[in-house]
């Protein structure tokens, strides 16, 4: 099991307490993956060679290593085997970036490594996010989630309840809604918000709520899950999120 440091009670600020290591000898790939994953709220270090990666991993153990197979100094697979043998990095999961139509033998060796997944570039942000979440999070998310601030109106609650309510995190399946008055768990809310000049109307259910306790993740509010959303609205949210996370870094114009 990868070691995940739990925030101590004295931690008043939620610094990202894990980082991912991206290893690729291609500068364009490194840039794309590193920017994309930073936007998805991960701390990222990059290495251009296997040697740099091994050095970095020995100084500070990453929560995950995402590596290309054709590194300029060594094979990515060999590097992974070396790190698997070192006690400090033996439990670090790997995601391998394989070429299209990668050989069967290659696949087999990857499977033998355990805790290893392979992806074939170009990797969509959704697939990358889901794979990374599965590798490092105890409750992995399946949909891209971004931080944003959208004003929301709640139509089935009194006005003073909804005043100043805004989204702080958004995905196509739910959101975190900022409010000093979080509703109790399981409350059903009818919400409306504006996204790129379109009005999105959803019904959502409160799945948890939080009050101020210090630290940036502890803003008061409630986590909501969408229980009714039109397919078109879901598509609009997905499109909005994809555009936000890949703006200016898409592999084509990178």
């Amino acid at each position: 099991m990868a070691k995940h440091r739990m925030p101590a009670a004295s931690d008043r600020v939620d610094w990202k307490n894990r980082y991912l290591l991206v290893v690729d000898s291609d500068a364009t790939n490194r840039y794309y993956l590193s920017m994309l994953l930073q936007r998805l709220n991960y701390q990222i270090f990059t290495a251009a060679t296997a040697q740099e990666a091994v050095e970095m991993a020995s100084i500070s153990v990453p929560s995950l290593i995402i590596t290309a197979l054709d590194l300029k100094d060594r094979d990515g697979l060999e590097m992974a085997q070396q790190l698997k043998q070192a006690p400090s990095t033996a439990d670090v999961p790997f995601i391998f970036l394989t070429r299209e139509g990668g050989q069967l033998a290659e696949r087999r060796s990857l499977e033998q490594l355990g805790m290893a997944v392979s992806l074939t570039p170009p990797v969509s942000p959704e697939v990358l996010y889901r794979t990374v979440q599965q590798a490092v999070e105890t409750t992995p998310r399946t949909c891209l989630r971004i931080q944003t601030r959208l004003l929301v109106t709640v139509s089935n609650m009194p006005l003073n309840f909804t005043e100043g309510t805004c989204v702080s995190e958004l995905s196509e399946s739910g959101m975190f809604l900022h409010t000093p008055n979080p509703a109790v768990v399981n409350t059903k809310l009818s919400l409306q918000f504006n996204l790129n000049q379109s009005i999105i109307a959803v019904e959502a259910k409160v799945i948890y709520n939080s009050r101020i306790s210090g630290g940036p993740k502890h803003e008061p509010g409630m986590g909501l899950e969408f229980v009714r959303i039109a397919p078109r609205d879901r598509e609009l949210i997905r499109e909005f999120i994809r555009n936000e996370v890949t703006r200016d870094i898409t592999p084509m114009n990178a």
Partner: protein
Amino acid sequence: MADQRTHPSENSADKKRRFLMVVDSDARNLSCLSTLLDRFNYQFCIATSAGEALESAMVAVPSLVITALGLKDMHGFELMRQLKQNPLTSQVPLIALNSHEDLDVKKRCLELGALGCLSRPLDAETLYRTVQVAVEKNPRSCMRLRTVQPIKVNNMPDDGFYGAYTLDLSERGMFLRTVNPVPVHTRLSLQLNIDGRIIELEATVLYGCQAGGGPYCEPGLGLQIVRIAPKDQQFIRQFIRNEVTRGIAPGNA
């Protein structure tokens, strides 16, 4: 009069589009430096050699390059010279990092077009200030920490500020998360609670932001502290410093 200052949240979409580059052949230094930049809320990419830095800068031009001088494949002077000579990167601000204080080295860095030369052990606040000057239109001089701390407004009706809290805090001011629109220049008497310590202070409103002003606009008030006991200010300063450098060995950054 309209306030000229832009709240950071308003341009955070733009902010996300830029990134800094850190160049250092020492993995430990690289790790400490980039952790600080991450905590200052910047995106960054790293390079462990001058060659890697030059190659990466051709993929996407960074907003700032911070480079150590002792690189494994080339001297930092030479990297800076090459960046300045290339039309693509000639306008990118440069900051050099030296292993120790050396006036001749500093002078040479300035001649090469660097904004400055910092020496190790690196002070987090000095780094913050130097980066702010290099990349921000309205550079801040004090470290600002994103932290949620409950706050009470003493001289205003309670319901207006119900549930208010800080989002960003520095020893000189804060961003107060509230939907209560209060005019610029209003003087507020505040009570802040940090780690169980009650801090009384007075602050004036510098700017206000309304929700709905775009997908990243945070509703709230930018405040400047106008009265605070020196020991309380010192406490906030220390609190921020401790949080920013937490887990980073002193002198390592």
